[in-house]
């Protein structure tokens, strides 16, 4: 018998826990050339802002050991184009839409949440808290739990009450559990973690930073242990808060690792660049892994690594 893959993110149920990670799948259109986007739990769209944004100049990326360094700068066409073109396309293909939003301040976050709530078909809003906070010298919202909480509060107040709001956390903070708690207190229905890890690469041929933005974000399998630790730590502190786990997921067994650490769903990011079919392959491998363990429901496994020896499956 095949396992029950359904998972819940707050009030929303997904058919399975495998989704794309923000910024690694556009809005699903390009990947639909390789697989049916309705087959995965959800497509998390690239962060959308109110206005069009050109981002950082090229070069925008460098390969790093088991990963990549990137500095894109949130390039995107803005919410109008997203609502006219990208969201309707994804919904027309039967895809579940988790929409990532990025703003320069509370008012922009609230307006984005409001605009998305007027459109039908948004399953979850994910708040990208790593965009530059215009009111605070361009620092990231996650640099200060109070600023992060304010952005989350703005999205929660602007969004329809039946749309769960997830706060996406950066690992580059002194107190991740404190940040997570502040976001939940401000109304986040769940947490997404982790965003990229701050990093740098210097091209020894040109003797200059390898990406135009100087510093960038490291992603890919290189950061998976960091991400698993973050999910584990926050799930231990806030066991009732659903988590979307991500960071270097390459195989079904990697996805299972995140679920055991405490994630209810798992997003696939940079590995999509390596393998455009990665999401459906990982879903298949994940399902096979559950079958091998004789697990009936994926929801039984969420956070199982926290349980005492011998009680891993809760039976």
């Amino acid at each position, binding site marked *: 018998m095949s396992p029950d893959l359904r998972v819940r993110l707050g009030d929303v149920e997904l058919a399975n826990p495998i989704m794309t990670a923000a910024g690694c799948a556009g809005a699903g259109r390009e990947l639909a050339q390789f697989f049916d986007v309705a087959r995965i739990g959800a497509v998390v769209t690239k962060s959308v802002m109110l206005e069009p944004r050109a981002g950082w100049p090229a070069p*925008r990326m460098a390969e790093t050991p088991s990963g990549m360094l990137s500095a894109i700068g949130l390039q995107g066409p803005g919410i109008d184009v997203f609502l006219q073109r990208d969201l309707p396309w994804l919904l027309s293909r039967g895809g579940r839409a988790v929409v990532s939003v990025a703003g320069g301040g509370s008012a922009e976050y609230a307006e984005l949440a409001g605009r998305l709530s007027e459109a039908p078909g948004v399953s979850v809003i994910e708040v990208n808290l790593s965009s530059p906070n215009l009111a605070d010298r361009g620092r990231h919202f996650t640099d200060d739990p109070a600023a992060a909480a304010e952005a989350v509060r703005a999205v929660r107040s602007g969004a329809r009450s039946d749309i769960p709001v997830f706060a996406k956390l950066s690992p580059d903070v002194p107190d991740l559990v404190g940040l997570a708690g502040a976001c939940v207190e401000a109304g986040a229905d769940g947490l997404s973690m982790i965003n990229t890890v701050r990093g740098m690469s210097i091209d020894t041929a040109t003797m200059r930073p390898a990406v135009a933005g100087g510093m960038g974000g490291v992603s890919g399998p290189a950061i998976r242990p960091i991400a698993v630790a973050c999910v584990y730590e926050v799930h231990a502190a806030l066991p009732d808060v659903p988590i979307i786990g991500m960071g270097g997921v390459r195989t079904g067994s990697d996805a299972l690792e995140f679920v055991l650490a405490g994630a209810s769903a798992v997003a696939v990011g940079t590995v999509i660049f390596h393998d455009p079919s990665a999401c459906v392959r990982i879903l298949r491998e994940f399902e096979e892994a559950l079958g091998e363990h004789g697990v009936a429901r994926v929801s039984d496994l969420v956070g199982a690594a926290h349980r005492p020896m011998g009680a891993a499956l809760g039976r």
Partner: protein
Amino acid sequence: MSDFRPVQMRSPVLTVRRVDAYHAITVVAPGVAERFRSGQFIAVAVGGDQSGMLLRRAFAIHDVKPDYGGTVEFLFAVRGGGTAWLAERRSRDLLDIVGPLGRPFPLPRDPVNCVLVGGGYGSAPLFPLAHTLRGRGCRVDFVLGAASADRVFSAITARRVAETATFTTDDGSFGVRGRVTDALPQVIEDARSDVVYACGPMPMLREVSAMAMRHDIPVQVSVEETMACGTGVCMTCVVPVVGEDGITRMVRSCVDGPVFRGERVRFDDVGTIPFDALGAPGWKARGGDDPVSAREAG
């Protein structure tokens, strides 16, 4: 367009061979071969399934043949760990490839005179183009250049396929000493060229485009910008390109290109965000702008 969608496949290697200073790999990939149009490329995974080298390498397709159900050949120079791994492949090894990717060279409706300009192994995608153009009754003239003789790719084929073939090298070890742009104006005049196709480094494409514009003939360039995915999702390979509406956008060279009209690429601003580009800092929407047409740029 769905018939032209790329495919991902594990392709057996047929041959790996040295060609001048480069390597060429032929793989059996019927799904790619039957969809291919000149100017398109493939993205190849390197290092094996558990490799720490995560990003695919993009290569222009150099040749497509119907043998063995459809084979595809691509050319590369060994530059780092990924290409070194590729050079070590042997017959029957499997390569994970995605393709064909990107917008191909637009083809003229009528039999016109075409000059094809290539720098280094950037000339690779010009060979299938030359065959297609000849098949449509076009006159083809080649101008190929490189740093030295061993880096001028496939001079013999160029001579065979084209009406004329002119070669330039920086060190004068083959053909004329100098750059392709030194030889190009004479070729355009002698051949009464109607259109220029070019592929190679950005500074070369800039000069070739300027030259074509001075001769008042259209120019199609295939740009090189590093890519992580090749499929349009990672947003790393952007170049500033002016759309038909006059608005500059940062467009992806993988799916919006790699072929653009030369006069639309803002070569002097490559590696920057031009101040007037859509979404640049301080950019403000002006009346009548339609950002939805972003994909039509170029």
